[in-house]
């Protein structure tokens, strides 16, 4: 499949500060989450994609065309920056229509597109209020509206959920997923793990300007061979269950959770363990209430990768 966005050996530094270091990455249609702590290089990567900065080394292409110094490409890209970017003395309507004028639409087309975008983000009734009077959530939404108003194929969202209340977050997540379902490419950055998990399983982990890993969460988890998988099994008799695995060489460590009913196993061979667990349950008549993988989430993956 052809990559929509492709970065090749991309590096960018600000004086002595390294923003991005030799990043090679391909992004396909759908939602891709860019995850990393503050200062990891997420925003730098997004700004390189949106042609706002020239890479020191490497190239970025969108649909095979170079991004830098090629502004016509941006007719198909919508960008929602992390921080507020408003003239406070304009209304939401003026903000969105003003930015739509750069695309060369006719007056009626601009009005129609602005109205549609503001309707999507549910700001229609507040569109004539000055942005100065907007709440944090409304500001976030009007920023999102300007990013989608020109109907772009690629939507780049830098920390779009920050500052939104839970309801606002849920609405925006729904909206972003709707764009994905239309076949668009959405690149979302966040340093908040649950936000990315709620949006997509396809993630790119960025840390100190480098890509630590990319793929879906279980795939990335598989990459971390140095760390055994942690599996929790809640059972009516966890000690009997543990006794069945004591001789198993694939098990690195076993312990009991403080509730006294959960056996926590660490193993490199997760699938083998599940096979044997099934056998133990069937043969030993041990009742299993719940099986979970506490480290099979993004938080754990991320902590492993950054070595915390």
């Amino acid at each position, binding site marked *: 499949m052809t990559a929509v966005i492709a970065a090749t050996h991309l590096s960018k530094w600000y004086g002595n500060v390294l923003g991005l270091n030799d990043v090679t990455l391909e992004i396909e249609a759908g939602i891709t989450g860019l995850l990393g702590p503050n200062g990891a290089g997420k925003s730098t990567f997004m*700004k390189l994609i949106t042609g*706002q900065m020239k890479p020191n080394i490497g190239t970025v292409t969108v649909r095979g065309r170079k991004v830098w110094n090629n502004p016509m490409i941006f007719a198909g*890209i919508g960008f929602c920056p992390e921080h507020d*970017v408003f003239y406070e003395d304009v209304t939401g309507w003026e903000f969105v229509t003003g930015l739509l004028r750069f695309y060369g639409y006719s007056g009626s087309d601009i009005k129609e597109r602005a109205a549609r975008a503001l309707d999507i983000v549910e700001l229609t009734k507040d569109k004539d209020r000055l942005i100065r009077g907007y709440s944090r959530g409304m500001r976030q939404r009007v920023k999102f509206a300007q990013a989608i108003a020109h109907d772009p*194929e690629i939507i780049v969202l830098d920390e779009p959920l920050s500052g939104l209340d839970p309801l606002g977050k849920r609405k925006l997540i729904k909206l972003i997923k709707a764009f994905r379902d239309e*076949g668009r490419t959405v690149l979302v950055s966040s340093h908040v793990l649950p936000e990315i998990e709620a949006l997509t399983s396809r993630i790119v982990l960025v840390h100190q300007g480098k890509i630590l890993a990319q793929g879906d969460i279980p795939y990335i988890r598989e990459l971390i061979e140095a760390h055994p998988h942690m599996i929790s099994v809640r059972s009516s008799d966890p000690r009997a269950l543990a006794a069945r695995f004591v001789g198993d060489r694939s098990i690195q460590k076993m312990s009991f959770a403080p509730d006294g009913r959960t056996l926590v196993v660490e193993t490199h061979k997760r699938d083998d363990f599940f096979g044997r667990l099934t056998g133990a349950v069937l043969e030993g008549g041990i009742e299993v209430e719940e099986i979970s993988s506490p480290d099979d989430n993004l938080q754990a993956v991320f902590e492993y990768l950054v070595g915390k």
Partner: protein
Amino acid sequence: MATIREKGYSHWDGKLTERRFPWWPITRTGILLAFRKKRFKFVFAGSFVPAVVFLVGLYISERLEDFKAFLQGSDRLLNIDPNYFKTYFTNDSLLFLIVLVLGFAAAGLIADDLKHNSLQLYFSRPLRKKDYLLGKMSVIFFFVLILTAVPGLVLLIFKLIFVGSFKFFLDYPWLPLSILGYSALLTVFFAFYVLFLSSLSKNTRYVTILVFMIYIFSDILFGILSGIFHEPAMALFSIKANLQQAGAFLFGQKLPFAVPAGWSFLILAGICVLSAAVLNRKIRSVEVIK
């Protein structure tokens, strides 16, 4: 059931056509935002006072007999010739009013974008740096031309109307070019001057003060230095004096300072080149982390 999605499907089907005047939305926004300031409307209206005074003077000059009692011998000032137009264009009050108008309307052109991080939004759209700068400059072109070329040409047209013949035009056929040329010089100079200062700070008030201070201080410096050295070349330190010198040259009149006009043109061009270099460095789409 989850939606089955064809990942290769590309929704966007717009055309990648280049806009003819990509700078226009920036100009439009700049002009509209200037007129949104209440105080600016008064300043802008007041800045037409010199034009009205010179128009009245032009009218009186054609009706000297009717106004003889009021003029009391000062009718020699109402001799309508290229010098009259030069006086309109280079008088202290017009130049100061231009600075005043730009201080209100243009000081924030780049400073506000820097303050609000708006450059990221501009440059993630089909817009080049040169389009951005041209858009900002066009705001200044609008305000300066409306105070210079427009009244200058209106004065010329009214002169022809009041006289009722083209004799004045035939006597001075180059005058419209002088009007347009000097207006263009003022426009380009002030565009670079104000945008350069606007790119130095995120605080519009600070930029407004700088626009005034540098203009006025350069003139004060000229006064002090010429008082000490008694040397006409000290006029080159003054922005106002250089503009007046260039104006006198373009209108074919006696130079106000005994210095070659070329030097003033060089000084003004130097300021423009320096400003362009700074603007080129300062206008980046994103904040630079240090």
